[in-house]
């Protein structure tokens, strides 16, 4: 019993220690962002790897989620004679919650784990040490472009996810269930306003981008230099990022009043 408490205590201390390390890592990224040379080329490379390569997943899943919302929403609303509000229901659900959260989770799985694996492999093969020996800061050259690209990409992908979702809902509501397309769009426009809904949605996406960017790069950077280390780091990125996304979803929602 006592050892259990002692173990928990040690785990707690190590957790705080880890948070401290992560904070210093984040500060390192922050200072690297403003330090010259500004690596535009690397940033664009990462935008491609994280953003463009995630497009298909985002569009497919967005449409699917929107269609499901359309289906579920219609079946429920039609009982109250409120099927005309389908556009509003689908749109609000996507904009406020499902867009940012699902996009972040999907991106974590695809781009987040790839980032961790890439950096982790560079640790194992001594490429990061190689960079240091050439007087290039690995945080500046490898980590920062990836983290910044993740933050930039998330709101863009989230907006696309939402639009594809609205389209998916449209496909079900209008094409399949026979709702009037004008009503679908109008109910959506009336229900959604910029400050509360859309701005909050973009803010959430940006916050998630920061989270995933930091967690994925940190886990890669601190990989144990063994081959098992890389897979362990990748797994922990997905787990930690997913949990953090959902926790921060609550925090941002509560603070923003969305």
């Amino acid at each position: 019993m006592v050892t259990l408490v002692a173990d928990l205590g040690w785990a707690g201390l190590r957790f705080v220690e880890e948070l401290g390390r992560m904070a210093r890592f984040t500060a390192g990224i922050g200072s690297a962002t403003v330090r010259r040379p500004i690596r535009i080329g690397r940033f664009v490379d990462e935008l491609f790897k994280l953003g463009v390569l995630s497009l298909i997943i985002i569009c497919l899943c967005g449409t699917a989620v929107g269609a499901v919302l359309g289906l579920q929403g219609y079946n429920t609303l039609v009982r109250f004679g409120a099927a005309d509000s389908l556009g509003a229901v689908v749109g609000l659900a996507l904009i406020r919650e499902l867009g940012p959260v699902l996009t972040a989770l999907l991106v974590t799985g695809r781009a987040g784990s790839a980032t961790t694996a890439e950096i982790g492999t560079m640790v194992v093969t001594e490429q990061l040490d190689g960079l240091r020996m050439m007087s290039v800061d690995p945080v500046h050259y490898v980590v920062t472009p990836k983290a910044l690209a993740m933050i930039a990409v998330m709101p863009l992908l989230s907006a696309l996810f939402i639009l594809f979702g609205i389209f998916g809902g449209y496909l079900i509501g209008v094409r399949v269930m026979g709702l009037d397309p004008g009503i679908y769009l109008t109910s959506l426009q009336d229900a959604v306003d910029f400050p509360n809904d859309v701005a909050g949605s973009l803010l959430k996406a940006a916050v998630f981008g920061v989270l995933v960017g930091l967690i994925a790069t940190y886990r890669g950077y601190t990989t144990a230099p063994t081959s098992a280390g890389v897979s362990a780091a990748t797994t922990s990125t997905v787990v930690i990022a997913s949990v953090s996304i959902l926790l921060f979803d609550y925090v941002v929602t509560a603070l923003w009043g969305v």
Partner: protein
Amino acid sequence: MTAADDAHLAFDGVRMAFGDRRVFDRLSFSFPAARISVILGGSGSGKSTALRLIGGLIQPSAGRIVVDGEDITRLSERQMYRVRAKLGMLFQGGALLDSMTVFENLAFPLRERTTLRRAEIADRVHETLTAVGLRDADALLPSQLSGGMIKRAALARAIVTRPLILLCDEPFSGLDPISARRIEALLVEINRRFHITVVVVSHDISSTMRMASKVLVLLPDGAVEGTPAELQASTDPRVASFLNPDLDAAALREVGHVEVQPGPAQGASAW
């Protein structure tokens, strides 16, 4: 032996420990400029650690490290960048950036750290690649290179900035005897032509004896420093048994040192 302040490359009373594991205690030696020096030792003797200490990638628990006459022991990472401009390092696995071609890998330190123009960089890269016999491989990716080619490319990258000191971590590991000889010849040539100080970490005794001006043998209970001739003639039983693997197993066990044969197995474990 203690290191004078104007020594080229020296350790003075360096202690290095990773947690509870003590790697070496009060290690002191000095290497001459513009010569090839070798750090010999078995697995786990701390030879790669010594190299990383010289490069400033890790810092010792105690003692002083002098590189090109400067005490680098307590320098910050940012300050080390200045020192590293004088260094070039050949990592055991090459550590080439795997998303770039050989040419780009060599051009990278020149672009980052010098103000050379594009044409000048191209010239320097091609000249260096020719020196290591890889002129035709400049458009290949590291994944397309053989083990020997990776080492040569990494060697080329390490010297492309014409450093003062070249550090090599087990340059012969994982190579067949012919390729290993080729690397050895390259190191000798580089040292002769560019007057670069070369520090090699190795466990291969024969090549060491051929090319080194100074040898540091890291033993479990201390270190011995000397020229190849001095070490061959040494009466110290530890040195003798280290240099002569033909001694019977009992004598080796008595000294507490197990000789490790160089070869592919060794190279693989290094990954």
